[in-house]
């Protein structure tokens, strides 16, 4: 192993563990080369200084509360979750209300049929949405 390869190995050793053979060749070279020993010493010192100097900062304690607040203020987020369900429910309520006036059946039967229709179509549209998101 020459000086260039040794210095490359020294730098690699600071990032990952070296294969035994490469490690031994590096050590062997270092034992007899002052330039590379000095390079290794400088790099190890630098590594320790970098590890100590780079701040292991974390977000402030209020980070999540502040983020939640922003999410609550985001109208897009509020709607995107519930819009299909709300639209479905409002549509069904309107259809039931109209049917109560227009159909010649008792209110009870119309409401019952409306509830069955609402739950049936809810599951149908949920299944359809699931299938579509699976496809995309």
């Amino acid at each position, binding site marked *: 192993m020459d000086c260039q390869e040794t210095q490359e190995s020294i730098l*690699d050793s600071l990032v990952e563990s070296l294969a035994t053979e490469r490690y031994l060749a590096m050590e062997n070279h270092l034992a007899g080369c002052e330039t590379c020993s000095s390079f290794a010493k400088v790099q190890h010192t630098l590594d320790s200084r970098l590890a100590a100097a780079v701040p292991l900062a974390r977000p402030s304690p209020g980070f999540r509360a502040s*983020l939640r607040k922003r999410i609550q203020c985001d109208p897009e987020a509020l709607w995107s979750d519930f819009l299909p369900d709300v639209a479905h429910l409002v549509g069904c309520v309107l259809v039931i209300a109209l049917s109560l006036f227009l159909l010649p059946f008792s209110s009870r039967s119309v409401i019952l049929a409306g509830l069955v229709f609402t739950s049936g179509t809810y599951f149908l549209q949920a299944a359809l949405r699931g299938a579509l998101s699976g496809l995309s």
Partner: protein
Amino acid sequence: MDEDVRHLLEQRRYSQALERLLNLYETKVFRMALGILNDTGRAEEVTQDIFLKLWQAFPAYDGRASLGTWLYAIARNTCLSASRSESYRKTVPLDIPTEPAAPATGSRDIELTQCIDRLPEIQRQVITLFYLQDKSVAEVARMLALPDGTVKSHLHRARVALATMMKG
């Protein structure tokens, strides 16, 4: 863990999915923003922007990319546009009092910090992120969308440059 979050997203339980992702990635993304922006306050604001974008993008997540890759792509683009823009939007002050980010545990090594600031941008980002992310080349490579080998080569060059600067 990614599978749990995917499952929550499929069920459209977005709040829980966000909470899980915050537990997993909040600190990593914050440190990534810090590594790129080099400013704690700004890094926190941009981290909030990233998670807000993520929240807005939940319905569009198609499961093709891994969640980490997807999140890092959003984070990288947001950090890069923030670092490009000279004036940035102040985001935190709503009615919650602004608290400073948790104090850094690293000691202040002014000489070294100045030398790091003089490195080319990509080398500065790579070396800072490497130490911020627990010396993981793979994590830094994922964050910056670079091959592992490229990250290592930037690290090597940065170390050699730092050693030279500190000698001189």
